[in-house]
């Protein structure tokens, strides 16, 4: 009996650890993708402001970074990743009413990035198209992200 309890506890403990590890892993993966988006975005902002010269190859690389992140991000917010590792995701992410909206926002971001890959051919089309792609960043963060410390 005693042995069985220990076994049950051991299983529970290991499952618990496994679960939280999945959550922490998801937080790390989504943060890495976001950071990659951010690093790429600083270049886009500088180009939009005229502080860096327009460079089509960099723009295209950025759009692919966005597309990749947008396709992977929705799966990286499992229920066991609500807290931990300094996540700045708000509880609103996991509210039932918001699930469809949350996923749709990533889908739109990815689709906008994919469309911009064909639309953007020069500086003029970049300046006309890129701000619309970037709107998704603040739009989503407004509802789903806030500083926690």
């Amino acid at each position: 009996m005693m042995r069985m309890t220990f076994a049950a506890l051991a299983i529970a403990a290991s499952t618990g650890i496994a679960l939280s590890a999945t959550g922490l892993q998801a937080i790390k993966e989504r943060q890495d993708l976001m950071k990659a988006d951010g690093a790429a975005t600083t270049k886009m902002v500088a180009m939009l402001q005229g502080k860096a010269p327009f460079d089509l190859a960099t723009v295209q690389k950025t759009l692919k970074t966005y597309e990749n992140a947008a396709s992977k991000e929705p799966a990286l917010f499992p229920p066991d990743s609500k807290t931990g590792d300094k996540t700045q995701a708000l509880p609103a992410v996991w509210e039932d009413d918001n699930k469809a909206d949350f996923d749709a926002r990533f889908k739109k971001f990815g689709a906008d990035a994919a469309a911009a890959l064909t639309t953007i051919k020069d500086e003029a089309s970049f300046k006309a198209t890129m701000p619309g792609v970037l709107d998704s960043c603040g739009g989503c963060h407004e509802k789903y992200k806030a500083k926690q410390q």
Partner: protein
Amino acid sequence: MGARIASAFGLAAVLVAAGAVAAWFATAPRRISAEVAAGVSEPGDPEVGRNVFYIAGCDSCHMSPGQPDPLRLGGGMELKTPFGSFYPPNISPDKKDGIGSWSAADVADAIMAGVSPNGEQLYPALPYTSYCRMSIKDVGDLFAFLRTTPPVTGRAPPNALIFPFSIRRAVGFWKLLYMPRIDHPLAVDPTGEEALGRYLVEGPGHCAQCHSPRDFLGGVIEQRRLTGGLLPDGKGKAPNITAQGLKDWSEDDIVTALSTGFTPSGDALGGPMALEVRSLSHAPAPDLAAIAHYLKTYKAGAAQ
């Protein structure tokens, strides 16, 4: 013995009555002065008023929810706070549901003194503790600009506040504690980058409202002004924006963040700041530069 008890009761009744009278007067709404009312009633410049509107971010709270036009000011967006939910009103020029029948002095009473045209206390969810520092010209120009926005019909739901915060008159006590006493507001905006930056941050920009810690009654803790605070809904933080908090940011970084929403690491500002950025992206570049300059020199505990 009976007489003594009766007189004690009598004295107590007199004291309670006197206290009630004193409380009634202490909580009486205090309007703007006749001098300010006359000043804001001069014809304003709506084009300058547009800049004031976007620096103040009126749209962040008053734009009709669920649609993208910042100039549809029908109100009704829910503002969740620890005191309950506020529903900012319709400030479009609609005569029936908005403020189309208000005079410039009525608007100045509301935003500079926190008093409605019918003499009621307004809740400090409208940041009049900052707007009281606005210049008379800015308020007049803002009024002129608000008149150019489209009338929107429909009213916001009534506020749903927790007792005792639901007692409107009690805002008078709150004001005794926290309302700056500005007897003579500036006639026009100050000149010089530092003075202008301070004016924009502490007046129309009302940065301290989110970026400062508050005490249990919701008053800003002055010694820690701008050192960061809880967001109104309590679900996140507004960061420290003093020189110390922004030590890794250049003035240009701040201007870029305020106008594009992106931080130096390419992160997009979130929470209510995303809304503010949508307003500030329309603000004049020199104003944003002045704000950045002021924040980069501001040390916690400096007097206002």
